[in-house]
């Protein structure tokens, strides 16, 4: 059987997908399969790919991870190999070394260079949404002529704004 992608190599990796009760089969040579590893993921799931390339999965199972369980979600590396999905954020710590190898293989890198939620958190502080909310309540209070409430809200807003300026 020849490879469905390059139409030249001998197909040794066989993938099956079921969409709407219809079965689709894809036959690939070793080279196309590994070249298109990430592409297959969207179409077939990494689990199938790992199953197809049995050695690939085995290779990742270092001494470190054999028999180890994620303390947070109880996933084992064996589970991961079967389903191709990690169990929680802490799995990344538990299986750090094996995942480093895998990430390197998938992305060609193990260093995140993108944005970070920490920077984000300081860029848009919580104070801001709290302020918006208080100002909305103040307007409501004024609208229904609850002036006592309005006065209290005005003081709260003033305090928040002063705090913000002090920090900035």
């Amino acid at each position, binding site marked *: 059987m020849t490879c469905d992608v390059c139409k030249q190599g001998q197909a040794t990796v066989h993938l099956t*997908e079921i969409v709407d009760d219809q079965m689709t089969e894809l036959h690939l040579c070793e080279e196309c399969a590994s070249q298109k590893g990430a592409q297959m993921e969207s179409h077939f799931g990494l689990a199938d790919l790992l199953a197809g390339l049995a050695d690939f999965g085995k290779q990742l199972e270092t001494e470190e991870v054999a028999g180890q369980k994620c303390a947070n979600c109880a996933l084992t590396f064996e589970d991961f190999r079967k389903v191709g999905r990690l169990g929680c954020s802490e799995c990344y710590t538990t299986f750090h070394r094996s995942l480093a190898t*895998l990430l390197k293989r998938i992305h060609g890198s193990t260093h995140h260079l993108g944005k970070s*939620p920490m920077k984000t958190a300081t860029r848009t502080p919580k104070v801001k949404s709290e302020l918006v909310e208080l100002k909305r309540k103040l307007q409501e209070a004024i609208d229904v002529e609850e002036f006592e409430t309005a006065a209290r809200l005005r003081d709260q807003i003033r305090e928040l704004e002063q705090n913000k300026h002090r920090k900035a």
Partner: protein
Amino acid sequence: MELNDLINHTSEWLKGTGPNSEIIISSRIRLARNLAKHPFSHRAKKPGQEEVLRSVEAGLADCHALKAALFLKLADLDEVDKQFLIERHLMSRDHALGDDHKGLAISDREIISVMINEEDHLRMQALQSGFNLRQAWQILDALDDELAAKVEYAFSNEWGYLTACPTNTGTGLRASVMAHLPALVMTKQINKVLQAIAKLGLTARGFYGEGTEAVGNFFQISNQVALGHSEDELIENLERIIRQVIEHEQNARDAMSRQDRMRLSDRIGRAFGTLQSAYIISSNETVDLLSSVRLGVDMDIVKDIDRSAVNELFILIQPAHLQKLEGKKLSSAERDVKRATLIRSKLIGNSHP
């Protein structure tokens, strides 16, 4: 806004406007995000899923871009509703499966949609008409910033955003465009181009149709890698290659127009004629013919019909849309009749090219 209102509006990304919209139908950015410590959706028990759904929904409802959004729980939807949302590109096929606690938020004009408890706790996307990845990224980046202040994301300084599947680890970003490449297909250059794209580390696949066979000359091209580059770099890299694809398609169109405009006009005219006169038509045949008509519009061979009307037909002729329009369930044979009726009503009054 309610679910049933969507069908009366054209999604923003179908407007047929924006840079290079004669070749690039739409641009999409997707981000995968998870909450720290909470088991990922497939691993979570029902109460855990419900908790994630509730806290993510609360966070999203507070975000500026989703102020007028429609929030749906998948459990409340019937099969046609779910199919309808898939057809509108607002959620994935996977999201419709199972009885997990899943949610969907859809912004005004369908620019942003957020799946909750898909493979990751959050899958957010922004869609724009034409070749407009930058704008889609800006929209989603802002929403992501806002949400990051309300929930605690799963994140590591070393590996970035932590996702259920390691192929998304890092930025969690997938940028893609839907490209209409009929001239590359007709001139038999498409395989060469797709192979080049794969060599450059991008993914290209047929948009309509199952498996490897593409229907209607639509291709989705996206980045594969998510780690080791900034979001801007990933997008720039995709843009650079897409610009070349656009150039190749444009050259092929120009060459056909110069050398064989009569044959091209004949093909497009016949496609238009069939759509205007058919009484029974399958969705595959429709997509194929509409692709020709769309090329005709883009090359000024078909006049008096605008691009957005053709774009909209691609969406409306799908099974769940037809059933929504009819207001009841239709068998496959009934749909083929309804589809032809709908197309005739939309295209009649437009003169033959």
